[in-house]
């Protein structure tokens, strides 16, 4: 009887031990996969960085080439008045397209998420915590108002607004030109400071609407510098209509 009991206990212990080992083995194999995961992820992260670096390198090559292009263009058209007016037009076009760094009078407008509001403070049924955040549609509204008031160059957090720029929302971040940006949103615009300021601050205008929800700050400036667009405005699908 006693021997049987001992045997039974040993049996149970063996079983438990086996189970324990089995779990252990699984843990180890899982840990391995996590390590592998981290490795592939690090690899991917490295690759993203490599691509970004390659892009930046090539971009500085392009900048240099564009500089050279401008020089030879000037050289080729210097003795010819019609040619030099064409040259000026190309320069103007590049400015309109947002492909050059520009400066001028204008405004700097900052929109910030309202950090002072918490979910507990939002109790009314028509209230929503998301009202206290800056949305992509708010930024589109501001850009449109600024263009209406004659802005000649606009950037949001240093992303130049060009003819192909989209302002989109992806979850909790906003993307401009495919690049992630976050609050505070600093919008720079060059144009008549009075007109730009007036467009945003008029009663019922954007700032009037935003002030109830998010934090705004606007100031006129004598010198606003706006960096160029560092992407390519492509024309793969369109061609000029032959006359």
């Amino acid at each position, binding site marked *: 009887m006693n021997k049987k009991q001992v045997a039974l*206990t040993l049996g149970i212990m063996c079983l*438990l*031990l086996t*189970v*324990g080992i089995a779990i*252990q083995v699984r*843990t180890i194999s*899982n*840990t391995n*996969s*996590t390590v592998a995961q*981290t490795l*592939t*992820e690090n690899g*991917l992260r490295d*690759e*993203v960085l490599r*691509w970004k670096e390659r892009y930046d390198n*090539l971009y500085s*090559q*392009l900048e240099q080439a564009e*500089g*050279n*292009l401008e020089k030879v263009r000037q050289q*080729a*058209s210097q003795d*010819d008045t*019609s040619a030099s007016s*064409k*040259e000026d037009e*190309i320069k103007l*076009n*590049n400015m*309109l*397209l*947002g492909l050059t*760094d*520009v*400066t001028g*009078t*204008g405004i700097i407008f900052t929109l910030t998420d309202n950090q002072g509001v918490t979910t507990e403070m939002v109790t009314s049924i028509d209230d929503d915590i998301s009202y206290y955040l800056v949305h992509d549609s708010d930024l589109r509204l501001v850009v*449109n*108002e600024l*263009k209406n008031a004659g802005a*000649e160059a606009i950037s949001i957090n240093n992303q130049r607004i060009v*003819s*192909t720029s*989209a302002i989109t929302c992806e979850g909790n971040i906003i993307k401009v030109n495919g690049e992630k940006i976050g609050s505070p949103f600093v919008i720079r615009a*060059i144009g*008549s400071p009075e007109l730009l300021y007036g467009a945003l601050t008029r009663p019922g205008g954007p700032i009037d609407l935003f002030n109830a929800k998010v934090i705004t700050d606007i100031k006129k400036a004598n010198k606003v510098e*706006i960096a160029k667009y560092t992407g*390519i*405005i*492509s*024309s*793969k*699908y*369109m*061609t*000029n209509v032959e006359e």
Partner: protein
Amino acid sequence: MKKGKITMAISLFFVCILFMAVMFMQFKTIDETDITAIENMRETELREAISTWKAKYEELEQRLTQVNTQISEYNESIETDKEASEVLDKELDSSNMLVGKTDVEGEGIVVTLADQEDYVRGSDLLELVNELRYAGAEAISINDIRVTNMTYIAEVTDGYIYVDGQRTTAPFVVKAIGNQTYLSSSLTLKNVGFVDKYTNSGIRVTLEKQKNVKILKTNQEMSVKYIEEVVSK
């Protein structure tokens, strides 16, 4: 007899300790599995980022080749003392095309917005333009008014919309040139795409792919008064 009981107690004690150790390991395993799920998500995001950078890099490469060809063409005309007008005209044409100073054509889509239970709003048009740009539209027009980088859309009273100061009314025919498939698929995403979203909100939206969309040039004077180029050092 007493000795046996003591042995039994000790063995049971050890079994308990083993058990606990195994349980802790188990917990750790579960923890790590959770992290793996999050990291999986990051991986797709990373892969997406890589493909975006690749695409941007290729565009950049193309542009660089183009610029280098133009440089050698200019150089050639300087060396041979020939007039540079041909090269210059070509460059000016493509630059004018990007600005919107020329009539252009190409594959694309035509989206028509019409009043139904609700008016078409200026903000609807703004959002449509934004969506089209996101999907890679190269040229856009609203009722044949070219949308350039300077274009604004203003709604004065219900139904009266001004695009670059020109009054226009529904139905709004919005044309876009770009990759047909990208353009139409990004607008027709189920429920969240522009077409479904605005059809549900009470306006009529139709979308048509076209092999050859023609978009007129801007009738605005494209000039600048306030901006000056920063001369690089």
